[in-house]
């Protein structure tokens, strides 16, 4: 016997293992790229001057922070959904107050152009 999450872990591992196995099979049928020009990343014909890996400015970081706030709120909503009917109007009003405050946060972020970056 397994716990349910153990079972799901096994399923995930089997799926991932099959995918990795198939991938290596592709490598067996044909040899991998052999010469240097074959490995140059595609840029429309020219070769790059530098590596592509770079420390770029994640310009949507303000939006990402907003997401964090909402993600936490969502965590509260899961148990709330289960007890909602039992608690009745009280649960509804309490969550509504919470959400209204968060939604004002979105409006503020939007006004401050936190959702745009280019």
């Amino acid at each position, binding site marked *: 016997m397994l716990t349910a999450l153990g079972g799901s872990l096994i399923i995930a591992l089997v799926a991932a293992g099959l995918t990795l196995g198939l991938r290596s*099979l592709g490598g*067996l*049928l*044909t040899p991998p790229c*052999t*010469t*240097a*020009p*074959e490995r*140059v990343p*595609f*840029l*429309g*014909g*020219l*070769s*790059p*001057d*530098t*590596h*592509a*890996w*770079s*420390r*770029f*400015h*994640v*310009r949507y970081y303000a939006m990402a922070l907003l997401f964090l706030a909402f993600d936490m709120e969502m965590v509260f909503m899961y148990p709330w959904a289960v007890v909602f009917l039992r608690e009745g109007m009280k649960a509804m009003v309490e969550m509504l107050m919470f959400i209204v405050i968060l939604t004002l946060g979105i409006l503020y972020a939007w006004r401050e152009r936190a959702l745009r*970056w*280019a």
Partner: protein
Amino acid sequence: MAGARLEVGVGQRPGILKRLAAMAPVRVFAISGSESAEIETLLQDLELEQEIVLTDSPSSANVLLAMGEFPDSMHEPARRIHDQLTRPRRTLWLRQNVSAPSEAIFPKAIREDAHCDLALLLRKIHRDLLTGVEPSEAPILPDEEPALWRGVGPYGQGGTGMTGGVPYGRPMPETAPDRDGLALDQLSVRVGPFFRPFPSGLTLALKLQGDVIQEAAVAENPFDAQKSNPYFESGDPFIRALSEPVPVVEMEMARARHHLHWLCNALQVHGLGALGLRTRAIARSLRPGVVAPIAQLRRILRYSRSVSLVGAGVGVIQPDKIRDRGLGPVARAAGLREDLRMTDPAYQELGFEPVVHAENDVRSRLWQRLDEAMQSVMLAARSGNATSGGGGRVEGPRGVITLDGNSLSLLLGLLPDLLHGLEWGDAVATVVSLDLDLRDVRSQRVS
């Protein structure tokens, strides 16, 4: 084992996997130099073939389709693309004159002229490749690493920079201040000349921060160095109209077809490949007066809000920069009422009024060309035997053409300013919306 069965000897029947693969749609990466109108038409028709797929990047294509003549500066990029194709690979080179002397850009390529049955030929090449009848082409460029691994320590580690040393010969991106004053990495890349959404030959030297363009510059036009231009010698009605009267119906149908082919490319870039193919098919079977298919296409685009999803507020040009420069649809999409046809008696008789859109962004350029195509089809039906032209100036599909040139180079010059600060997708949409053609820019200026 499946692997063992796949290895077939000479004269043996290929394994089931190889036979199935041989029946798969042919994956083609197409690159074009300066080609004749005939070859261009072949490519447009090729997209309508169901068993041919034109890929966006060479890495998953088996056949390289090279079209026309390539100026010297495009040889190395073309060869690099050739090497980037997956194996098994083969090259088909379409040329106006197959026996024309040339330095062998693709030494092993199959050469054909514009009269071949292209789809059939590609399918045969694909079948022969996958069943092992023909061997895969070897890489053309020499097998040289960009540079040796350099670093301080025994594994190349140490030194300065993010990972230390110079891994794999390429340096890490340089650090540069971004527009918020942060010192971060900046990618310097040159995109082109065979980047599919861009017109052939266009190379942009860019400085990227993430997906935002910090700085853009247009590299030299490779076609400047070319002496002859098949496009200019073709029977293009607008080129002919410079020196002789040409039936209005011929010019207007050519204009409508031009705009629809452009629309097909734009729709493909915006993720609407199937509607793009529909546009191609409409362009191919276009008849004067029959606007219903175009009108239906327009309705689909309007109800799905696709055009405003991709282009509202993107790529706005200051109207003053393009006023009175003969930039045709781009100017008219900026609300400028300029069109040589307004002063042409033949067109005045037909009651011609230019279509104008005011928003001046990618969206309005899409609507502009779609509406002009419909207008041209209607004009062609009404024009009867009217002729126009011979005055040395004519309104072409990309704007005014005169004996000394056109103003497309002006649009090229505007690109750095236009692209500055744009997100990558918006930048590509902007370049596409201008309908540039680097061969056209050159031919007009030289002649």
